[in-house]
Every structure is written in C-alpha cells, then in structure tokens.
C-alpha cells in the first residue's frame, strides 16, 4: 500500500510575457527557493527532484541537465517529464509516486517554461511527422473543430464561454502571480475581440507565459512535524489516449480520459457528489469553452448542464464550487508549469495561504491537468488525513 503524502510548501514566480531578467536555470531556482522557504526546508532536505518542461518548445535538449541544479539537483536524483500540457501535472503525480513508494521522504516538483525564448506554435506542429503535420490544425484549430461539436451537441453558447473568460481574468486580479489580469473585462469585450478560428476569439485563448512553479511533497511522518496544515493527497489518476484527433470520438463531449480519471480519483477519495464534496477546483482550461466541457466530464453537472453552472454563478468566487480562483490557464500559461500551478493553487487553498483569492473553509480541493489532444490527470487534496 502506498504511504500517505502531503504537500507542505509551494513557490511561484510572477508569470509574464517575457522574463528576460533571468535565464531558465535561474527561473527554476527562484521557484524552488520560494518553495523551500514556504516549507521551511533547506536544499539539503530534498531527497529527489522531478522537473516538468516541454523542451522542444524552446529548442534545447536536456532541460534537466541545464536547469536541474536550479531545483537543488546537485548530487541528487533528477527526473524530467514532458507530456504536453500535462507535463506539470504528470510531474506532480510522479513526485507523489516517489514519496508514496517509500523510496524518498521529501521531493520537489518544478515545472517551468519560457515561451518568449522559443517557437511554441512551430514546436506544437512538430508532432508525428507522418501524418499530423500535413494538415496541422494547430493549437487553436484543434479546439475550434471540437468546439463546433460541443456547441451542436450540448448547446453551449459563445456568451457562456465568454463568461468563463470574464470569471478567470477577474479572479486573476486577486492572484499576485497571474500574467493576465483584467479587472474591467466584460462579456461584450470578449465577444468583440478578434476571431482566431471560429468560434474561438483572442480573449477566449490562454496566453503563453514565462514562469516556474514548485511544490514540495513530504511523507506522512515528515509532514506532521514540518507543516501546520499540510495538503494531504487523497487521490491521483492519469488517463492517456490514442494518437490522433480523429481517433477520439466527439472529444470535448465524451472526453473519455477525463471521465475515467475523475471516476477513479473520486473512488479513491470517497467522493460521490463532486459539487457538494469538493470546496474548490483548479482545472486546466486552455480555452474558455474547454472549462465548460470539463465541468461535465468531471461530474460537476449532468449532461448538457455545463452552461447552467456558469450562468448561475455556481463556479464563481462565492458560488457553491469556485473554479480557478487563481485565474487558471486562461490567465497564466507557462506550459511546463501550468499543471504544477493547478496542484500548487489547490494546495494553497487547503493550507489557507490563498490570501485575497482564498476560498473560506476549504477541506477538499481538486486539481486537474489537460494536455495533448485528450490526456487527463486528476488529483484530490484534503486538509484531513483520515
């Protein structure tokens, strides 16, 4: 049986369009030292390091070699994970496995990306060379195609998607780390922004950001002494998919990977009614419409009811289940970090360190990672061990 594991500290850099004041190793160092301070640990306390980064986006091999020592990797075990958008959540889950297995007691997970230094769109088109590249629909295009199915099949509207953007960019104003903060943004502004690929508009899309995020896991014994209010890991689940968009039937509606991952995670955590049993969720929404698709796949609502959740303010701050108090991926998106940020922000909510973005009385939090065409990671954190 795996050991029990908690998150005892987090560290984030300010996310922005370009961090030219630091190179990549230093960016990783910043996030790691902040997490060590938050956990009141020294670098010598770290047993192992897990890194999350999409190296191809920045055109350099072996990010773990260049940047590993920024995460305290000197004379330690360092593992790097690159799984698209889920890089950060895969890395977070891998770090959990390393402590849960009993091999290590304290593990830091650091995800980062510097999109300003690379060619992300080109790199994203460098998928399998035999097939996908020839009619590449790109990051926006592949969503746009699936969104047409979501709108036709589930009745989601452009206004509902715009409300997701407004929620995110306003929530981000209370997050000192967020890249995009828009206190005055309105649905009308979103709906009149430039159309990229129908129906996805500029303000519906996530940014590309520079930044790093670190979380520190501890075994049960170390967590009890080290941290006043650790965020205990109650459940983890990962589900991956077939290689081509065309293999995945009605992707955003069916989303079989996320449904399966959520079902498994809820089973592990003893959750039967997510809307009631969860107090906050940090989910990975690269485009506003995706958030609505995830509501349904995560079981926050019945089939076809996702639009209702946003219309009725259920997922707003102050609603029954606040989703993305941090502003989500729609506001900050250094790809290698984005999945770690979801876990970090969920942990911050449990630990009561959310400051202005704190949801009152959080006991159970969900963190979700999404990547590639349909990969899914789900993690559930709790303030209670039992």
């Amino acid at each position, binding site marked *: 049986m795996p050991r029990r594991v908690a998150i005892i500290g987090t560290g984030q850099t300010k996310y922005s369009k370009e961090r*030219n*004041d630091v190179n990549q190793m230093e960016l990783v160092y910043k996030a790691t030292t902040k997490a060590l301070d938050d956990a009141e640990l020294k670098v010598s306390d770290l047993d192992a390091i897990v890194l999350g980064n999409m190296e191809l986006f920045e*055109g350099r091999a072996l990010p773990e070699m260049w940047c590993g020592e920024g995460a305290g990797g000197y004379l330690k075990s360092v593992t790097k994970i690159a799984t698209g958008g889920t890089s950060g959540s895969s890395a977070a889950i891998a770090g959990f496995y390393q402590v849960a297995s009993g091999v290590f007691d304290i593990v830091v997970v650091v995800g980062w990306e510097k999109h300003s230094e690379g060619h992300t769109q080109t790199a994203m088109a460098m998928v399998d*060379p*035999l*097939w996908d*590249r*020839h*009619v*590449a*629909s*790109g990051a*926006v*295009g*592949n969503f*746009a*195609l*699936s*969104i*047409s*199915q979501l709108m*036709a099949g589930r009745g989601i509207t452009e206004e509902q998607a715009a409300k997701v953007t407004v929620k995110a960019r306003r929530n981000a104003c209370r997050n000192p780390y967020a890249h995009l903060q828009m206190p005055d943004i309105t649905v009308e502004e979103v709906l009149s922004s*430039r*159309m*990229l*690929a*129908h*129906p*996805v508009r500029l303000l519906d899309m996530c940014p590309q950001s520079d930044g790093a995020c670190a979380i520190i896991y501890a075994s049960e014994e170390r967590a009890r002494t080290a941290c006043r209010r650790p965020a205990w890991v109650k459940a983890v689940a990962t589900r991956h*998919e*077939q*290689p*081509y*968009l*065309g*293999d995945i039937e*009605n992707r955003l509606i069916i989303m079989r990977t996320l449904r399966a991952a959520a079902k498994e995670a809820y089973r592990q955590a003893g959750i039967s009614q997510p809307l009631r049993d969860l107090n906050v969720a940090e989910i990975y929404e690269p485009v506003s419409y995706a958030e609505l698709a995830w509501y349904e796949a995560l079981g926050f609502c019945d089939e076809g009811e996702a639009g209702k959740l946003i219309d009725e303010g259920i997922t707003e701050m102050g609603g029954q289940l606040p989703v993305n108090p941090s502003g989500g991926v729609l506001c900050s998106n250094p790809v290698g970090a984005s999945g770690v940020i979801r876990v970090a922000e969920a942990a911050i909510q449990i630990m009561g360190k959310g400051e202005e973005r704190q949801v009152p009385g959080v006991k159970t939090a969900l963190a979700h990672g999404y990547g590639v065409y349909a990969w899914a990671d789900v993690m559930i954190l709790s303030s209670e061990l039992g």
Partner: protein
Amino acid sequence: MNELINIEIPMALRWQFGTGRHFSRFIQTLRNEGKILGIRCPQCQRVYIPPRLICGNCYREMAEWVDVKDTGVIQGYTVYYHPILDPVTGEPRPIPYGMALIKLDGADTTINHYLSETDLAKLRIGLKVRAVWRSQRRGFISDISHFEVIQ
C-alpha cells in the same frame, strides 16, 4: 539594471522519419492509385485512418485493409482567420480558410482537412463533402488540396 543580453541561435535541422510498412503502403496506394486505405481492427472492428500496426483500444495487430472513399461527412468544422503556411507550397494559405473533421465513407475515425467553404452560415455538422485532388500526387494526405461541400 545593466544591459540584458539575449543569445541568438539559428537552427537548421533535418530528419528522416521511417514510415513503417503500414504507412508506407498507405503512401504508395495514395500516390500510385489515388486511393485512400484504412485498416480494420479484428476485435473492435473500427476502421482507422491513417492505417497503423496496432489498434490502441484493443492492443491488437491489424491486417485487414479497407478501401475508403474520398467522400465523407463533416463531424466538426471551423473557419480560420489566422494565416498558416501551406506545408506543400511553403506559401501562406489565404485567409479565411475552412477546416473540418471529416468521417470518410468507409472509415470510423475522422481526418482533419481543409474546406473550401468559408461562409459559416453555410457550414454545419452532417454536410456531405468530397475531396478535391491536386494534379500531382506525392503520397500524403495533402495530395488532397481540400474538401468541397456537395449538397
């Protein structure tokens, strides 16, 4: 603050990716006969494009080749307002341009391809489409220039 330096690295990289026997047969048939081949899983019966060795759902090897038509049905669509480089000509595709997820007649997976129709009022899921082929075939799905709506 002192002057901040950026180090610039130009890269010119070349690769040769092996196709394997399945994709190789697909390429040959496409180029030599102008025909699209799919492959059927013996267990779940799904016909896949592009053809490949294993069905990921069942983890079974596939060997039953299926002729797939160059007509099909739109399952999802979008109109792009962003320029993108056409990988065959190297020139930017004129905007706007349409793209769709198309279930070709005979296949169970969809392919992603260009659409000549760019008027959103005329596009919906369920429309029938037909391939428009380029005059010179090289053995890629981009030998089809785009699909046009046929109803």
